[in-house]
């Protein structure tokens, strides 16, 4: 039977504990890859872009599959949760909506049912959808290795296109999202050639309104597919802080975001087009985020923090 695509041969391990997995990853050598959902790795292997000598599957490990409220009001998400699970989780929808929104814009149902949040982050495509949303939420990541654990800001996890600071023998264990401030609203807006395609450009915007709801107290604007890694736009954020977010202020923030983007030209778009679209999408994302923040203010009950 002939097929269009084949996988090259490899040694396959399915450890049952995290310690075993880390040990295998450390000892098997440099050309070893982690297998979680496989929706990025197996595609790369079929295309000849990767030819690992060994695969260490995480799929027999029981850990890292929970979505747990954290003490203090945040949320801890195990790295082996599928994108589908993130998109449909009520815990996420309630107070971290921008993440559920981003997860829902990814790929196809079949891919979302296998792909994991850990895999999406470790694949570290500058166009990854969950990354801008998670950075906007102020997330940290917990890495587990043979010599213990370390936690760092998600922004610092990416070191370049397709590269992270993961050391040999380390795995991404958990994503830690802090409690959102009251009067927060967030939106993820993505431009892609077709429905749910890989992002040409994307923007995650999170805003916090002042107690009287008139001014923007704080903002976090994160750009996807507009630089070698996901980046924040401090200049755009500054344009909003403390101001009444009217059309003019939003445009100024959008322009600032566009100016700090450093996109490439590729098959999906030219750098000039991407830079222009950062401006358009930032304005859209901000308007939607502000609407959500105002909805939260006006709904009865609200947050008591």
């Amino acid at each position, binding site marked *: 039977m002939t097929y*269009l695509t*084949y996988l090259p041969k490899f040694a396959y391990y399915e450890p049952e504990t995290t310690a075993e997995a880390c040990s295998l990853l450390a000892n098997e050598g440099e050309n070893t890859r982690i297998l979680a959902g496989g929706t990025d790795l197996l*595609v790369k292997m079929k295309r000849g872009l990767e030819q690992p000598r060994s695969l260490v599957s995480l799929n027999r490990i029981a850990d890292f599959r929970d979505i747990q409220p954290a003490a203090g009001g945040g949320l801890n998400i195990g790295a082996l949760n599928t994108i589908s699970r993130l998109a449909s989780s009520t815990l996420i929808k309630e107070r971290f909506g921008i993440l559920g929104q981003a997860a829902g814009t990814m790929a*196809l*149902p*079949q*891919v979302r049912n296998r792909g994991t949040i850990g895999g999406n982050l470790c694949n570290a495509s500058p166009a990854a959808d969950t990354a801008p949303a998670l950075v906007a939420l102020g997330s940290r990541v917990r890495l587990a290795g043979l010599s213990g654990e370390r936690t760092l800001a998600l922004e610092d996890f990416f070191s370049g296109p397709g590269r992270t600071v993961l050391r040999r023998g380390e795995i991404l264990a958990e994503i830690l999202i802090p409690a959102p401030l009251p009067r927060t609203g967030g939106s993820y807006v993505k431009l892609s050639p077709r429905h749910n395609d890989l992002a040409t450009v994307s923007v995650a915007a999170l805003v916090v309104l002042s107690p009287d709801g008139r001014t923007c107290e704080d903002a976090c604007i994160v750009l996807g597919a507009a630089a070698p890694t996901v980046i924040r736009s401090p200049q755009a954020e500054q344009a909003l802080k403390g101001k009444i977010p009217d059309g003019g202020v939003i445009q100024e923030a959008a322009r600032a975001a566009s100016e700090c983007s450093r996109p490439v030209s590729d098959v999906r778009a030219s750098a000039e087009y991407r830079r222009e679209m950062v401006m358009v999408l930032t304005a859209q994302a901000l308007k939607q985020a502000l609407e959500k923040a105002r909805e939260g203010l006006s709904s009865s009950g609200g947050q008591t923090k």
Partner: protein
Amino acid sequence: MNEKMINLKVNGEPVEVLVDPSVTLLQVLRDKLQLTGTKEACGLGECGACTVILDGKTVNSCLVLAVEAKGKEILTIEGLQKNGNLHPLQQAFIEQGAVQCGFCTPGMILSAKALLDENPDPDEAEIREALAGNLCRCTGYVKIVEAVKAAARALKYNNGG
């Protein structure tokens, strides 16, 4: 030497196969189990022709290693009929004219089944979203959506009756 023996359930029947880790679930279904209803069109998880239902969720079988399916339950298109009777989805696809060359059909029907199992009364937007991972080059999708609606009605009628 590198081969592993795996046990899984396919269309309700227990199955035991010896596979190399580099073999996909798609290849095992077609080559070892002669279940050729599941197709390869792109091999890269973009077209959905290889869709099967794994532990209740649709997946692209071209991107699942056979060894990863150990201990799991797989439903292929061959598993839909009962005692020689077509499933309402299969019947609806035929009646509504939703099949032309038929290559995308097994994957389409399984994605539709997973949708109706979870949401027995989907609107058009929900149907299109659930089938977003299955490409069809022949029909233009309109009759496929009509078929899913018709099947939903038939299933509701059968359950109510």
